[in-house]
């Protein structure tokens, strides 16, 4: 810039171009420096300033009529601007498409191919520009870079048709044979930039490699979700073998592990997961995948351990994951955020904590389950930790159900007093939402989305409280809680079965089923208490009612059979026995599977101890003459 310029005709113009050139190079060097050294808000502000500088040069260039000698500089600055902006905002937006479009129009202006008022789409613009570009060999390197950015934009916005067509044009292969995106990316070889060329933030070859990895990975994940596993395996292996950062490699390995597990190859899956672990960073989905693998293999200890690790990892990684990116446009920018359907979706810390607790409960590790549930509730209710959210994300349970599961786990772990406290807490927090008078089930259905559940939670809380009192051997309290539960449950009338059975959603069916089973559970529990206090007739009533309410439920019938036998009412007993002998077990199995966890586990408690012996005993007693 300090160079003396002679008052010649061409000198000032040349110096002006040099000036812009130097500014571009200076800004690029500056951006690279900022990228390597700074972080946080300061980095963002500095990059913002550099972007401003690039924009200024670009505006002054675009203010002039497009000219062939200036075009390489102009396009280079456009590319640098786009790269930096995408890196700053961590993703592509419509702005970048407009920048690219503007650049392409400028190219066509010099070729006078752009008729006035002719509005070409991006795809047509590219076709025209690339066909014209043979006339402008100097422009080719930067056009390939711009095409790389366009490809990245189309990949991230899932315009794969446009992307394939662009690559075909770039490769000069117009044949319809090669529609394979990965193949096209591999055959694309952008011309190497000359040493004397303008400085750029990221070259076309690096973009090509990133595009290849990202496309392979995206494709693999998509195939994994749709279930075409062999294809997914090859795509993911392609991604793993191309250039990618460690964090991306961990993701790819995890997806590979998931794929192989689904293909029934647990050993190879495990190898990939171990390889991923060796890459250094602990990543949530990796641990979740490991736990799934162990679960499939039946290794509960390892499964629960990995889940425990995962909860710890999630509480730590969030603070540290703000690792500054070292490359401007990296593979991560071209990947979509994993949605709940994705094998790489891991959920929040509380969701994992809940998963861990409920797995413990399901696997019969009551002590651990109780501890985990208490941890979870403490974290949720304390509120001092702002980073903790409830696990309630469909299809997970809602908060009241978490409370009920916690109470159940506590009872299971023989901590009846704690269970009572948890139930008390639930009741005190939701009781005001209860209706004041009995009402029809149909009304409940039409109410707000959550209202139908409210009575169920409340009565379930009473049910669990009753069970806690049973454990504390306080029979009077227990019976009164069971009665209170039944009172609430019978306020809710089941709807008329005749109408609207098909139109109602699954949620409704589930609530209906839950209601039925809750009633049965409460009746059986109260009946058992009556039996314990020797009031067999009262018990008989409750068992009879529970069989009526839940005809498919075998437990109720067993209890009924036992009581009838005890009361020596043989005729009725044999009728029940015949029903029990009939091979119609399937519906019940299915029914219990769709019940909420707390209810499913509850039935384990009131399950009659040895049904088969009872049936056999009864059979022999039937054979005996009266």
């Amino acid at each position, binding site marked *: 810039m300090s160079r003396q310029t002679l008052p010649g005709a061409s000198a000032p113009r040349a110096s002006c171009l040099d000036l812009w050139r130097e500014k571009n190079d200076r800004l690029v060097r500056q951006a690279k420096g900022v990228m390597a050294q700074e972080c*946080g*808000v*300061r980095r*963002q*502000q500095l990059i913002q300033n550099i972007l401003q500088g690039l924009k200024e040069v670009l505006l002054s260039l675009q203010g002039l009529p497009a000219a062939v000698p200036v075009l390489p500089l102009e396009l280079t600055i456009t590319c640098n601007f786009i790269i930096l902006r995408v890196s700053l905002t961590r993703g592509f*937006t*419509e*702005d970048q498409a407009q920048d690219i479009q503007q650049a392409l129009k400028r190219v066509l202006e010099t070729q006078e191919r752009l008729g006035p008022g002719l509005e070409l789409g991006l795809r047509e613009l590219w076709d025209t520009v690339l066909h014209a570009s043979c006339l402008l060999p100097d422009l080719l390197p930067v056009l390939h870079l711009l095409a790389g950015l366009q490809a990245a934009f189309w990949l991230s916005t899932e315009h794969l048709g446009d992307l394939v067509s662009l690559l075909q044009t770039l490769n000069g292969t117009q044949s319809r044979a090669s529609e394979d995106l990965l193949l096209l990316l591999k055959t694309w070889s952008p011309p190497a930039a000359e040493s004397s060329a303008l400085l750029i933030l990221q070259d076309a070859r690096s973009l090509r490699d990133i595009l290849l990895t990202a496309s392979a990975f995206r494709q693999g994940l998509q195939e994994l979700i749709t279930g075409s596993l062999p294809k997914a395996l090859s795509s993911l292996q392609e991604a793993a073998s191309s250039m990618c950062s460690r964090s991306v490699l961990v993701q790819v390995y995890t997806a590979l592990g998931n794929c192989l597990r689904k293909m029934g190859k647990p050993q190879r899956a495990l190898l990939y997961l171990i390889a991923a672990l060796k890459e250094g960073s602990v990543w*949530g*989905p990796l641990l979740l995948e490991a736990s799934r693998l162990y679960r499939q293999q039946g290794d509960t200890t390892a499964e629960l351990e990995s889940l425990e690790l995962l909860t710890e990892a*999630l509480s730590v*990684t*969030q*603070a*540290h*994951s*703000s690792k500054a990116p070292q490359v401007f446009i990296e593979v991560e920018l071209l990947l979509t*955020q*994993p*949605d*709940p359907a994705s094998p*790489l*979706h*891991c*959920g*929040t*810390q509380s969701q994992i904590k809940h998963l861990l607790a409920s797995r413990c409960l399901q696997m019969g590790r009551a002590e651990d389950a109780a501890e985990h549930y208490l941890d979870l509730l403490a974290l*949720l*209710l304390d*509120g001092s930790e*702002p*980073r*903790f*959210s*409830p696990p*309630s994300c*469909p299809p997970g349970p*809602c*908060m*009241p159900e978490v*409370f009920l599961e916690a109470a159940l786990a506590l009872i299971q772990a023989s901590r009846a007093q704690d269970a009572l406290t948890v139930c008390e807490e*639930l009741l005190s*927090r*939701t009781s*005001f*939402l*209860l*209706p*004041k*008078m*009995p*009402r029809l089930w149909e*009304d409940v259905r039409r*109410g*707000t989305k*959550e*209202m139908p*559940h*409210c009575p169920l*939670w409340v009565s379930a809380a009473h049910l669990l409280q009753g069970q806690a009192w049973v454990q504390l051997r306080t029979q009077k309290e227990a019976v009164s809680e069971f009665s209170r539960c039944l009172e609430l449950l019978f306020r809710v009338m089941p709807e008329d079965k005749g109408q609207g059975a098909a139109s109602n959603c699954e949620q409704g069916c589930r609530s209906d089923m839950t209601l039925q089973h809750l009633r049965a559970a409460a009746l059986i529990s109260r009946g058992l208490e009556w039996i314990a206090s020797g009031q067999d007739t009262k018990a008989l009533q409750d068992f009879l009612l529970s069989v009526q309410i839940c005809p498919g439920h075998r437990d109720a019938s067993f209890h009924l059979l036992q009581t009838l036998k005890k009361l020596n009412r043989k005729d009725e007993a044999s009728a029940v026995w015949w029903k029990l002998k009939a091979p119609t077990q399937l519906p019940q199995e299915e029914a219990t599977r769709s019940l909420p966890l707390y209810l499913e586990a509850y039935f384990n408690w009131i399950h009659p101890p040895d049904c088969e012996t009872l049936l056999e005993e009864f059979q022999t007693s039937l054979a005996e003459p009266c």
Partner: protein
Amino acid sequence: MAGSEPRVHYLAGFSCPLGGLTSGKPRVLCHEEEVFLSTGSEFVYVYDQEGGLLTAVYQFPDQVWHLQLLALRRALYVLCARRGIYCLSLEPRRRWSSSQTSEDNKDSEASSPVITVDPEACVLPDTTLCAFTVHDDVLVALVQGPAQWKMQLFERPRPGEDCQPGGLVGEVELSTSTPPAGPPGKATVPCFLPVLCCVSPPGSKVPLGHPQGCGGFMLEKALFGLLFGADATLLESPVILCGLPDGQLCCVVLKALVTSQSAPGDPKALVKILHHLEEPVVFMGALKTEPQAEAAVESVLSCEDVYSDCLVALGHHGRTLAIKASWDKSGNLVPELREYCLPGPVLCAACSGGSRMYHSTPSDLCVVDLALGGIPLNSEQPQPDGVPGGLPPLLCPASLSICSVLTLSVLPNTPAGDTELLALSTKGCLMTCRLELSSEMPGPTRMTTENTGQKIKELLSGIGDVSERVSFLKKAVDQRNKALTSLNEAMNLQDVLMATCLLENHSDFSLDQGWTLCIQVLTSSSALDLDSAGSAVTYTIPVDRLGPGSQREVTLPLGPSESGVLDLPVTVSCTLFYSLKEVVGGALTPSDPLEDPFLEEQPLDLLPEQEGICLPLSRQTVDMLQCLRFPSLAPLCARTPCPLGPAADLVDTFLETCRAPSSEVAGPAALRAKYLPPSTASIRVSTELLRAALEDTHSGVPLCSATLQWLLAENAAVDIVRAQALSSVQGVAPDGTDVHLIVREVAVTDLCLAGPIQAVEIQVESSSLADMCRAHHAIVRRMQTMVMEQAARGSSPPDLRVQYLRQIHANHEALLREVQTLRDRLCTEDEAGSCATAQRLLQVYKQLRSPSLVLL
């Protein structure tokens, strides 16, 4: 209104741009004696109420859009447009480390220094941030994405700390059907910003002294549970309420918004849409509508535990939503939801601690009470019947006679029953308004001396506000006058013919609102071409009550049209129209465009619809003879001293003299007038016929002059013609060309066997063929009428030479045939040929216009 007379105190004035401040972005907050204020510019002012002076002015790099104060932590959070969120520490000792630009040379004690806020104070840089709220230890920000709004949750940054990207705790996209206006990244200033506020469940440990209206309030548990669900209730989680410019009202449970960093939250699970106002949401707040005493007894704990039981949201055009929890017939907890319509456009609003909501429009500050059932506050009426605790069916806003308040804040710690508002007006005036709204208002009769003194004080303080109100009204009137003036100017620029229509009610009934006077001005686009339909302009003038015997005058321009040519004759027909649709529709939504100066886009649809009653009144044709002016006759008039004459003469005379030398216009028309012989046409009428027709009115006047007077009967110059007994006049047509009318007596031979017929020849001469034709047309029209009348009287024509007549008739037939063929040829020929044809056609027309026939 006697009871709720506001007492307005002006505190300070702040600079405001020409035309006043705009609504939406100014904010005013108060903490103890300090007032924090932003006017929508890049400054944030700190004003000390006690000392009555500015203590600090902070300058930000761009417009300030929102302020929030964390009083306990002495931190002020500022949203700066296109920059992000800044955090200022308000420690009195340790001010924010900043470069004080103007401190070097000025005494900082005397004038409050402008402190340029350091870029380091930016704790959350984001160019697309549009709204935020701070609650406890979290900061919720609303970011404008390419197609959707995005809610982001951060750990609250402290002053001087960066909001690390790791501080992002949760994120969710709000599903909006309409994407926010304007592409992202472009420097478009949104007209309406989203509104965020934080709703806490009852009993949560919100730091006390959290100023109301600063983004937070507590709701009682039934309403909270009902609105936000069991999860939020169980978790006792605060809920972020969000009102979007498209009218959507949605909520996000704060504790559920915490998401793992790898994935943003699922909108379906996290975002609940409460309502859609269908107009930009400008305010959300909460009220205590249950009677205070009752509620306090119910919860014996303490009076402070009376939580708000009603959620309100206000739209820009005044649509108001109120939600309360209530029990339905079968005992279920149901939300009671009501929409009201308040006068708009709403500039801002605020909720008092009780059941009152204040909202400001450009013309007034109003208060509504959701407990009193919207009955105006001064009228002491019992509560409306219905379920106690229900929402009032109707809201009646009571005016507080304060206009153009842009932002409001309810001051805490005011004596019970009173409310004190801090307000900023369009003109940048910061003021406090004390409102005595206690229900047990002393009657106006009990006026003691102290009262009187107080009253006078109040009146005096009221004057200040009245002046502001007056200035607002004056502005509106000025605008209207300006519009009228420019309209007038536009009309006066051209030489416009004005028509005056007088609507007079002779009936015994009065015309009420709803009637419109429709005046249709029909121009024949070319008087020569009778085939073409003329253009029509319809003016509709609403008639605002016309009593019996009263009249209304309407003046309209008749032309010239856009082409600059006045197409005479013009037919003006008047009808009265009563549009049923408009009246019925108008009754439903009365809208005065002046009441709503903020809505330019409102269509002013006054054109009558088809559905209605139509009464034709009269039809009048204006032709050339009526429009001719006679400046040559004027000097005669000017010689007689005219009282109105000299009023504007000094300037006019000067201009006149200046213009005189160069007045020879060099246009083609002038050239033609100078060098070409004028076009002429003539009509002959037998003297006998004319005498018969004119003897009633013009007896004793020479026939030629009488004829001229008859022709110009509807012209203002007729008096001069009569006074001077003129038989020829030199007039000027509206477009400025001369028109010469000559009336003379001639004798027509050859026609009658009995000898020559005495006749009167009326000759029209003009340099403009078109004007000559128009005048000729006008004369012929009059002749036609006269002949018809005379024929009805049954006068007998003299014997005529039939042979001669036949000859003339045959000639005319031939000429007409030639006209027909020439016109046909005109359509088919090329340019050169058509020119010759046109020439010939003109000649033929000329021959036709000078007939040898006489009207007998």
